[in-house]
């Protein structure tokens, strides 16, 4: 980066003390499809709308919820390609940790490293911030965790949160519905109901994606059949 003509940072302060590029990145996130996560007593669930631009698209090839490691998964709102770069780096962090310590990487550490990468791209030459917010869900020795990471690199732990287009309404809905002694099954139902609130059109098992991790510490993405069952229960 030092040799190029763009060795200066493109992300610069405005007179009011804001980093405008980050604000705009957050706009890119807010334009993206809604994603949400809920932390229950015995696990975490993350869910997202799969907005397909055309019915000709193969919906099962678009994976918005991805594995970071056996115990952790993530979902994004915003620019898909940007999320894939972070996904790759996060997976590498998790594997490198495991190689060194033969222990699954604690969720907060993984979040911290990923957030650090995102911050680097707000203070380096010739790059722009990532146009995604991530919801990272994992289960480690400290229990279930749900973290949100923003384009600025700040990260927050949440009991329940939503990002993307419908986040304001979704968060209000979650505030009302959340309780500390929720079990994972309740959390999945609540997640579906929350997605339903802002959903344009008919919700089916092909246009939403749900991921969960419970105290068996294995993250999994629900199959369309499993999603269909939950949708049926929620009706």
């Amino acid at each position: 980066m030092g040799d190029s003509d763009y060795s200066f940072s493109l992300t610069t302060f405005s007179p009011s003390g804001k980093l405008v590029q980050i604000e705009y990145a957050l706009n890119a996130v807010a334009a993206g499809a809604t994603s949400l996560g809920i932390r229950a007593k015995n696990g975490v669930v993350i869910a997202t709308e799969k907005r397909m631009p055309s019915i000709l698209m193969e919906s099962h090839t678009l994976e918005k919820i991805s594995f970071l490691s056996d115990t952790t998964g993530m979902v994004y709102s915003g620019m898909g390609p940007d999320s894939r770069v972070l996904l790759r780096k996060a997976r590498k962090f998790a594997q490198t940790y495991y190689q060194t310590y033969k222990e699954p990487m604690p969720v907060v550490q993984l979040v911290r490293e990923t957030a650090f990468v995102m911050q680097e791209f707000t203070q380096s030459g010739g790059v722009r911030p990532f146009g995604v917010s991530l919801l990272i869900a994992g289960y480690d020795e400290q229990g279930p965790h749900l973290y949100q990471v923003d384009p600025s690199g700040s990260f927050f732990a949440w009991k329940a949160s939503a990002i993307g287009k419908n986040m304001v309404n979704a968060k209000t809905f979650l505030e009302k519905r959340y309780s500390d002694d929720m079990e994972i099954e309740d959390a999945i139902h609540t997640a579906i109901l929350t997605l339903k609130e802002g959903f344009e059109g008919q919700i089916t098992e092909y246009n939403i994606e749900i991921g969960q991790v419970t105290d068996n510490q294995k993250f999994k993405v629900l199959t369309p059949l499993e999603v269909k069952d939950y949708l049926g229960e929620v009706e």
Partner: protein
Amino acid sequence: MGDSILTYNGGCVLAMAGHNCVAIAADRRFGVQQTTIGTDTTRIFKINDRLMLGLTGLRTDVTTLYNRFVQRLNLYRLREEREIKPSSFSNMVASTLYSRRFSPYFVEPVVAGLTEKGEPYLCAQDLLGAPLFANDFVVSGTCAESLYGTSETFWKPDLSPAELFEVTSQSLLAAVDRDCLSGWGAVVHMITLDGIETRLLKARMD
């Protein structure tokens, strides 16, 4: 006499498992081939209240590696806000050694500790980080072969801390007395859930 860089300075370490306890012991000699130049060397280092690391081999690498581990562990403690598990530490040691696969650290470490549940954890590695896990005992150093012999003879399962101390001490002394590159004093650390107790043994000073 310097047929191997690993025997240049001399020294040995033995670690044994008992019932909810481990003992790790070493001699105290520091030599330059046949000449003894130190009798108060530390080759067993405390990692935390439940975990100790013994390092035999080239003295300069022992010191350097120990300092590297201290550095990494301090960072680990700051980031993770907890103490490292014996298995994780052992793996970290192995990774560190293998990272120098083609220009190795001339040390052969022994990791001895108790898991959170109080179960003994023993691991010995060669200079490239190949681990050897055992439920009974692990050895390292210039008289490793002798240590295998004495330990095999004296060890039995489920020894109490007092019995384990006796068995470890006798196994170490018997082996060390037949090795000209080890000896000149001995130290034994007993690790139990209550903490670490260190004792110096009265040994032949030759």
